[in-house]
């Protein structure tokens, strides 16, 4: 099955129907393993048991960026390759990405509360994620604001790509802004210096959440394709109404109005 084959929505729906149950099962199994392992993971000598929040915070934070990446590729698909499923993929990903980003923020602030004493600190990482969240919401608002999906797709694709270029700049600016005001970062999680007992559960959770995203994304894409079919059928119905007058008992004569399709 190549990318060209997938261009046909009907074939895509068939593939989705076949793949979804397996994906869902794999997600559940991996999540179970990940949760079990993170439950067994030892406490951090500095942070105590709160380090367990990391096992869901980090995968969500990873997904918040990964989903934007997926949307960026889909946007390229819309603008450059004109792949018919690209804007379906981009649209379906936005609310899911926003949800993961929201979870990253929420767990981040719950993790921060014991560390900082407040729920929110204008910490460089959290702030960047907050901006990312706002951009997700803006993108969703854009999708909602335009009724015609193919017209909205162009605008959303441009915005997504501009966002993808801008995100590193925003991240850099926020880092700079943050260090300007707070020389010492409040929380340091050494990235690669992480102990193996944390790293393995974290990796499993990250993979499980990524699989969760893929599952949800495919299902949401399927919904989106069906939604567009409903829409085009309704358009056809609207243009067909005039003909129904023909068979009506009022005998007003045939109408050949076709309607704006």
């Amino acid at each position, binding site marked *: 099955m190549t990318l060209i084959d997938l261009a046909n929505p009907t074939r895509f729906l068939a593939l989705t129907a076949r793949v979804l149950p397996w994906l869902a099962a794999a997600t559940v199994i991996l999540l179970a393993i990940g949760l079990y392992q993170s439950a067994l993971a030892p406490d951090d000598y500095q942070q105590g048991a709160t380090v367990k929040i990391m096992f869901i915070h980090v995968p969500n934070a990873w997904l918040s960026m990964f989903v934007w990446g997926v949307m960026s590729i889909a946007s390229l698909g819309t603008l450059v390759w004109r792949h018919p499923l690209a804007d379906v993929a981009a649209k379906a990903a936005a609310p899911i990405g926003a949800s993961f980003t929201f979870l990253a923020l929420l767990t981040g*602030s719950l993790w921060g509360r014991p560390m900082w004493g*407040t*729920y*929110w*600190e*204008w910490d460089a990482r959290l*702030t960047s994620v*907050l*901006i990312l969240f*706002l951009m997700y*919401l*803006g993108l969703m*608002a854009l999708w*909602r*604001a*335009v*009724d015609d999906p193919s017209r909205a797709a162009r605008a959303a694709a441009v915005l997504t790509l501009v966002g993808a270029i801008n995100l590193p700049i925003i991240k850099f600016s*926020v880092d700079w*802004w*943050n260090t*300007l*005001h*707070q020389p010492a970062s409040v929380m340091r999680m050494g990235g690669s210096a992480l102990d193996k007992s944390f790293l393995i559960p974290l990796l499993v959770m990250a993979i499980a959440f990524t699989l969760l995203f893929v599952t949800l994304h495919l299902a949401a894409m399927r919904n989106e394709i069906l939604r567009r079919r409903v829409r085009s059928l309704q358009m056809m119905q609207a243009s067909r109404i005039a003909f129904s007058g023909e068979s009506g008992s009022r005998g007003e004569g045939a109408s050949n109005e076709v309607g704006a399709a």
Partner: protein
Amino acid sequence: MTALSALIRRDIRIALRVGGGALIGVLFFLTVVVLMPFAVGPDLALLSRLGPAILWLGALLASLLTLDRLFMADHEDGSLDLITMSRTPLELACAAKALAHWLAAGLPLIVATPVLGLLLNLDMVATGAVALTLLAGTPALTFTGMIGAALAVTLHRGGLLMAVLVLPLSIPVLIFGVAASQAVIVGPMTFGAPFSILCALSLVSLVVGPFAAAASLRHGLD
């Protein structure tokens, strides 16, 4: 009464459907408030002192900037003609439209306030005070903003002109709204005095707004 409730229900429905802008106001509010710390700095003590002011400014801008389409859309598709001709007094119809707008766009701002209070390091009491003053004050913003929205139809210009016309009118609301919230947080004034003035301002605008808007719509139709 059926006429007015039908109008309110229609406007809310349109605001919530695809293409409607009810939630964009909240998003704008969120964005404006998030921008502030980047200008002020991430100092939590400072932010919590400025918090009520930031929230009020954000809510003010969000509720006024979403208003400029209040009558414009109805004017463009001819609905406004029919509303003017109908047996429902235009003043009441204007009030109903403003109420619908407040329900669809104003209330979500108040619901979003606690989350933003968290970002600005406001404690529970301060957040509650801001939310309460917004609840009392945003109707005043909507109903005075409505006058600007009506003028925008008359003058065939929306956007910035409307903001320039209406923002000065909303200064009293801003003064007493922020004063009442600050009174809870730092004192030394009591909460009651500015809050009752705020409520009075809202009540006055509930009366004046529909009449002014209806008058300007009547003279502006052609």
